[in-house]
């Protein structure tokens, strides 16, 4: 038997600050990406899509790794807060993986000449999206709190295998997709410094946004857990 109460935590108290920080960081990052950074020599202004696309992809990776860690923590401790963190992070991860695919498609049309290409990075990302949609589906097919949390935790551990596959797919196979420009094995980014700064700013802004969304969604999930426990009692 697990029990839960929706308490005001330090994370909840930090939410307004995280919201404000997200807004400011997003404003600065958008200014850097859209106005301050130079256009690409080959792609022109189309390159500006990549600042948001890459930040989205980073957030998706982060979200699914958090699902993995929270899932292990849940199985270890059986504390429902970790289940709440896992579901919150999975939902955000699915949302941002979907956006990554859409933005990548918008970028691919003028660059590759097609909306969709069957190349390793795109396929593995689409597979990752499908996997975590399945994760959310699994969660919705039972009302039993413990059963749902345990099974979702197991799935959350298994599915993380796809995250490194997505990232490394472009180096393992012949890919049309650009090779990693920042997270390279030799730790030497290949981007123009202004472009790199805009990309880092956008990634930081999205990370703040992730933290803000997490605090809000975890709070909702904790309240839902409390309602289920109360109804059961």
């Amino acid at each position, binding site marked *: 038997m697990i029990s839960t109460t929706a308490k005001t935590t330090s994370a909840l108290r930090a939410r307004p600050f995280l919201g404000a920080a997200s807004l400011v960081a997003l404003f600065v990052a958008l200014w850097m990406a859209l106005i301050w950074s130079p256009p690409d020599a080959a792609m022109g202004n189309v390159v500006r899509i990549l600042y948001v696309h890459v930040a989205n992809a980073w957030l998706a990776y982060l979200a699914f790794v958090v699902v993995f860690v929270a899932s292990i923590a849940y199985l270890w401790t059986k504390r429902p807060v970790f289940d709440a963190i896992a579901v919150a992070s999975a939902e955000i991860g699915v949302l941002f993986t979907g956006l990554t695919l859409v933005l990548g498609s918008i970028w691919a049309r003028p660059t590759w000449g097609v909306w969709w290409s069957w190349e390793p990075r795109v396929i593995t990302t689409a597979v990752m999206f499908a*996997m975590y949609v*399945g994760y959310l589906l*699994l969660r919705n097919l*039972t009302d039993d709190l413990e059963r749902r949390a345990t*099974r979702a935790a*197991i*799935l959350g*551990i*298994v599915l993380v295998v796809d995250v490194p596959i997505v990232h490394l797919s472009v180096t393992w196979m012949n890919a049309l997709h650009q090779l990693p420009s920042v997270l390279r094995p030799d730790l030497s980014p290949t981007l123009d410094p202004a472009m790199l700064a805009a990309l880092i700013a956008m990634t930081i802004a999205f990370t703040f946004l992730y933290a803000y969304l997490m605090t809000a969604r975890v709070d909702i999930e904790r309240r839902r857990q409390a309602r289920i426990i109360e109804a059961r009692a």
Partner: protein
Amino acid sequence: MTLQRIRLIAAREARAERGQPEGLVTAATFVATLILVESLAVGPLAAGRAEIASALFWIAMAFAAILVTGRSFERELEDDALDAVLALPGGRDAIYAGKALALAALIALVAIVGGALSLLLLSLDVALPGHLALVTIAGVLALPPVVVLFVVLALRLRSRGALVPILVLPVLVPQLVAATNGTAAAMSGDMAGAIGWSGLLVAFALVYSVLGLTIVPAALE
């Protein structure tokens, strides 16, 4: 977990299938029908190409594995036998291992039926029969550890019949790619390719077996 308990669970599964072979019969019929329909849909000429025939075969095998595994656990639930098995002394990981082992044997039988049918209907030439057998064995071993894991996760849930393929198929993509490429390589005479893909399939089988043995006991209730 002991080897004896794994053997007992696997033998029990085999006995149940011998008594009521509906899982095996359904899966074999399903594979035969699917190969026939897929071949007609893409056209016999295209379906006769090594890569296409291999892909059609392994897609059918993935669905058959889901069907056989689902049926195996449904039978346990219908007879209220799962609770009794869980109550027996010994590790729950042995249930996972025993089931996976028995289902690999069942899927191997289905693969023989489906493979023979593909070879016959599509007049396929096989350059390296021994290597084809090797890839098929490796592919058959790679499927149950994943499928059993996901069927256990969906056990006693609503809409589990639809949920399992949704969960399993994306995870099986690397195995299906490896099995398809390995089979096509064996058929077209690429010895190194067939051995390489077989090795990858065995590696997948080992990784998912370890994963399943570690975490499935938590889901078995």
